[in-house]
């Protein structure tokens, strides 16, 4: 009933707007947005600014948590009904929808001229056979968050530069972790064995430009480099310096936001975590967390990786493609509007023209006056193209996470675990 009324209302609205549109140029009508991060546009007045420029377009935001959004979009694409006009898609999920024939609109004509303006690696999942299906929103440059108070207690330096120098490689990081654990008893970071989600492993693959498949599309889950990467991470388990808290659960939050004995000293994760720490996970302890560069896999190698990040796309079913594109262009392709959002939520724009803005060098009182945004920026420019995400990411991540859990609990060795995961992936996807 509600749906019927909504449709009727929208219909009436469109008719009335349509008559106005006859008199004026430009897109018109209502566009429906699905996603979970539009608060950076609502709270900062960008939606109003959009309406000032496109007075005939009405924006209707439907907030969905990511899980619900994917499920509903999947249904909308299968049935050819009920899709929104603009949809937020994480890069990890994007390629799956791009591969779903006719689910998303081909945006190549609009996007082609602005492709070079964004981080190159962000396009990998948005492109298929030379056509583009989404526009990058934010990047996920990976950094090392560390607790200045715990570092001090362990007799280690606390400023960003010295910490970056200490953790120049994963070996250096292990030494720091060992010192911290020996001196203070604090775990270095949370890395659950039994419920590992493979995210940290993926970060370390990413920084080496590796992933789950190669340029020919063959599965590389059991490649020697992948096995070596997992074995490198396992050194932290053998040293006993990690905790078992499962990410995104209560014990994990307590470790990051608490002040007790069990709190974790560091966290390697993307920059979007900064705003979560600041606003809710560790909002009670300002001035304690600091930001440094993540370790390199080996001395002199890249200290940059990506974790997460979103895009905006237009479902093919949308009957208001022009207005939807106008919205995406306004929000994501204009530096001033991306900066407005960045100032609000710290989600680093993938749009590189923003990178000269003064905001990047402003000290952040939450991080004890450090300038974390300058680090985010520097990292974003160095993120290699990797093959972690892709059409089968969900399936591959699931099998690899299982492999890591089996290896971490001592059931099998790294090679056996990853080989079995690779076999499962090959069988289920039909890839080589």
């Amino acid at each position, binding site marked *: 009933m509600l749906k019927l009324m909504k449709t009727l209302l929208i219909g009436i609205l469109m008719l009335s707007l349509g008559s106005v549109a006859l008199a004026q140029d430009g897109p018109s009508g209502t566009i429906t947005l699905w996603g979970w991060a539009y608060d950076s546009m609502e709270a900062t007045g960008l939606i109003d600014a959009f309406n000032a420029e496109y007075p005939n377009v009405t924006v209707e935001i439907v907030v969905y948590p990511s899980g619900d959004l994917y499920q509903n979009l999947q249904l909308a694409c299968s049935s050819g009904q009920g899709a929104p006009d603009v949809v937020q898609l994480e890069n990890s999920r994007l390629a799956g929808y791009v*591969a779903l024939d*006719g689910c998303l609109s081909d945006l190549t004509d609009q996007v082609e001229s602005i492709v070079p303006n964004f981080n190159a690696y962000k396009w990998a999942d948005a492109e298929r056979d030379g056509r583009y299906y989404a526009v990058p929103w934010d990047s996920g440059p990976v950094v090392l968050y560390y607790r200045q108070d715990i570092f001090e207690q362990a007799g280690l330096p606390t400023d960003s530069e010295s910490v970056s120098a200490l953790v120049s490689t994963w070996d250096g990081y292990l030494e720091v972790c060992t010192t911290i654990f020996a001196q203070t008893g604090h775990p270095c970071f949370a890395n659950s064995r*039994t*419920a590992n989600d493979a995210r940290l492993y993926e970060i370390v693959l990413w920084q080496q430009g590796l992933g789950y498949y190669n340029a020919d599309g063959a599965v590389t889950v059991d490649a020697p480099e992948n096995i070596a990467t997992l074995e490198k991470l396992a050194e932290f388990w053998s040293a006993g310096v990690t905790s078992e808290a*499962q990410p995104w*659960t209560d014990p994990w939050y307590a470790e990051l936001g608490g002040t007790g004995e069990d709190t974790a000293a560091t966290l390697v994760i993307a920059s979007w975590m900064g705003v979560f720490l600041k606003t809710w996970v560790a909002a009670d302890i300002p001035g304690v967390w600091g930001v440094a560069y993540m370790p390199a896999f080996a001395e002199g190698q890249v200290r940059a990786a990506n974790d997460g990040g979103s895009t905006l796309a237009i479902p093919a079913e949308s009957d208001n493609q022009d207005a939807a594109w106008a919205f995406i262009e306004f929000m994501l392709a204009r530096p001033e509007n991306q900066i407005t959002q960045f100032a609000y939520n710290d989600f680093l724009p993938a749009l590189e023209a923003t990178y000269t803005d003064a905001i990047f060098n402003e000290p952040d009182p939450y991080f004890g006056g450090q300038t974390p945004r300058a680090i985010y920026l520097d990292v974003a420019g160095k993120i290699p193209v990797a093959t972690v995400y892709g059409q*089968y990411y969900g399936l591959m991540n*699931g099998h690899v996470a299982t492999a890591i859990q089996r290896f971490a609990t001592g059931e099998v060795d790294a090679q056996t675990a990853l080989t079995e995961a690779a076999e499962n992936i090959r069988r*289920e996807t039909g890839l080589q």
Partner: protein
Amino acid sequence: MYTPPVSSLSNRHIEAQPSASGGLTRSQSRWGLLFVSPFFILFMVFGLFPLLFSFILAFSDWSGRGTINFTGLDNINLLFQDNLFWQSMLNGISIFLLYTPLQIILSLVLAVVLNSKRVRGFRFFRMIIFMPYITNMVAAGFVFQLLMNPQSGLFNQILALFSVAGVPWLDTPMTARISLVVLVLWAWIGYHMIIMLAGLQTIPQDLNEAATIDGANSFQIFFRITIPLMRPVILFSLVLSTIGSFNLFTELVSLFPSTRGSGPLNSTLTPGLYIFNQGFGNFRFGYASAVAYAYFIIVFVIMMLERRILRSHDT
């Protein structure tokens, strides 16, 4: 969990009254058809069609959009090599073994206790025990995460009072299943208790009185009269919790968010969750349908066995 409407036994006594002329007139039967049609239309659209459609999909590699390519018996072949599917069946069986007997016994005992008018405030207790059933599972899952926090959770703090070492509730395969069973018991015991209460109230009081006069004590009454007469109700409850333990979903996702419900080492991945992951997570609707049918056949056999076992005592 799936909760089919409890069909009232008394329905069969309500039969169409024959009209004065000794049968339904044509227009009467037309009206009759019209009145029952909503159910059949809804059933065909939301019940029968998906059932048949997913049977067809089970022999395809449909990704949710575009043409349906038939792949013959490929999915069935894959199914036999799919360790994760078999693990999910084993998980379902171990959760079923941990959960179902406890659920049946506890809800029956609670129902018998709260059926007695001698218990003071029985209405209040019935309400309290039923409350979790109407509590939002996502919220409940989060609260249980807090209770089961290995360091600061209430459960381990209580254990510490008795100098018992803390339990890693959600972190090892076996404790994860036990924690899950605790949550599911808490959430569903009220529902099963209500079913049992309804069953108890159909047992005529004079049977108990006669037994008392013959010198039977309350244990003898419980085991010789209550349980045999409750057999159909227990079977109903058993079937529901069997389907339930293989089909857990919301409980899993809210208790194990970091593994999207699969739990440590996939120890709580149920067939229901696995079907969802394959379909909606991996765009493999064809394979998910094949898994759904395989799972259906296995659970159907288990339920037939349960019926057989409970029925065989009837003679």
